[in-house]
């Protein structure tokens, strides 16, 4: 009787004192939308794995770490709502201007709607508009023109309902040419604004 009590007490203690079992863990590399595949290094219990293939994974369960490959459908089942909450990747749009003016070219004017739509799709966007010019004219003239182009674009975005306090505008003049040219060269591809959104 006494033995049984001691035995049961010992069993109970062993159960209570045992380290709590850790939850299983999964780490996986996903291909980016452009197909690029990155790499992760997982250092777990007694093992280290470098994973650098699409859907390549590491699983840790019961103190053992093993490499495996996940099925894309499995990833969707496990991480669907998580991946859904991932904010949009930072991106950039370029629109072009008529020489010497802060007016868009007809081609860029036509693209404007799709740019607005893309910007409006993002919750709480951080937008930076940067104006540029070609090398026709003085440094000072082009600094002012590039700022006017950026400001004009900023106004257009605000008119479309994008929040004014989330849009910065700056001019780079002829300092950052898309197509390098000599000074005083008319080059349509340099007369532009970049709209960077995060």
């Amino acid at each position: 009787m006494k033995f049984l009590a001691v035995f049961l007490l010992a069993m109970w203690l062993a159960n209570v004192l045992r380290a709590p079992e850790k939850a299983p863990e999964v780490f996986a590399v996903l291909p980016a939308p452009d197909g690029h595949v990155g790499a992760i290094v997982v250092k777990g219990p007694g093992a280290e794995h470098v994973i650098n293939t699409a859907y390549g994974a590491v699983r840790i369960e019961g103190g053992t770490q093993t490499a495996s490959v996940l099925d894309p459908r499995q990833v969707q089942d496990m991480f669907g709502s998580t991946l859904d909450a991932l904010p949009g990747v930072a991106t950039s749009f370029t629109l072009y201007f008529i020489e010497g003016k802060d007016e868009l070219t007809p081609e860029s004017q036509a693209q404007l709607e799709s740019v607005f739509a893309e910007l409006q799709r993002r919750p709480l966007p951080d937008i930076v508009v940067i104006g540029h010019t070609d090398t026709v004219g003085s440094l000072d003239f082009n600094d002012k023109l590039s700022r006017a182009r950026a400001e004009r674009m900023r106004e257009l975005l605000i008119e479309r309902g994008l929040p004014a306090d989330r849009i910065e505008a700056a001019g780079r003049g002829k300092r950052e040419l898309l197509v390098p040219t000599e000074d005083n060269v008319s080059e349509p591809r340099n007369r532009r604004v970049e709209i960077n959104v995060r």
Partner: protein
Amino acid sequence: MHKSLILVAMVAVSFPVFAADVGLVKVSRGNVQIERNGAKIAAPVGAAVQTSDVILTGADGSAGITFTDNSLVSVGPNSVFAIDKYTFDSTTHAGEFEGSLKKGRLAAISGKMVKQSPESMKIRTPSAIMGVRGTEFVVQVDDKK
């Protein structure tokens, strides 16, 4: 004397709030909270994220955060994700990002600091530590039910 003291106090109170912001909540669905200095606060879209914050989501919750180096992190339902350390220099792109997924699910796309210096972003879990060389990955720490 008194006026300048008040001014110093106002500056001290108003500035660090912005200086410490390392990220921004861009997506907030269901129950999402931030635990900061022991208090739980709501984390709607637009809430700032700071170092030492812990992101908590309920059974119906998920959240997406953008960090200053363009890293993107989302946490799924029933998750606890702590931002242990975050520094980023926008000129050199040097930085350190250390987070802990205590439980739940996380998806991320690494940003400029990892591009500059692989494995500058690390995610800890109860059993392991993961270094990020780039770019898109997922982590799950699943509770036993």
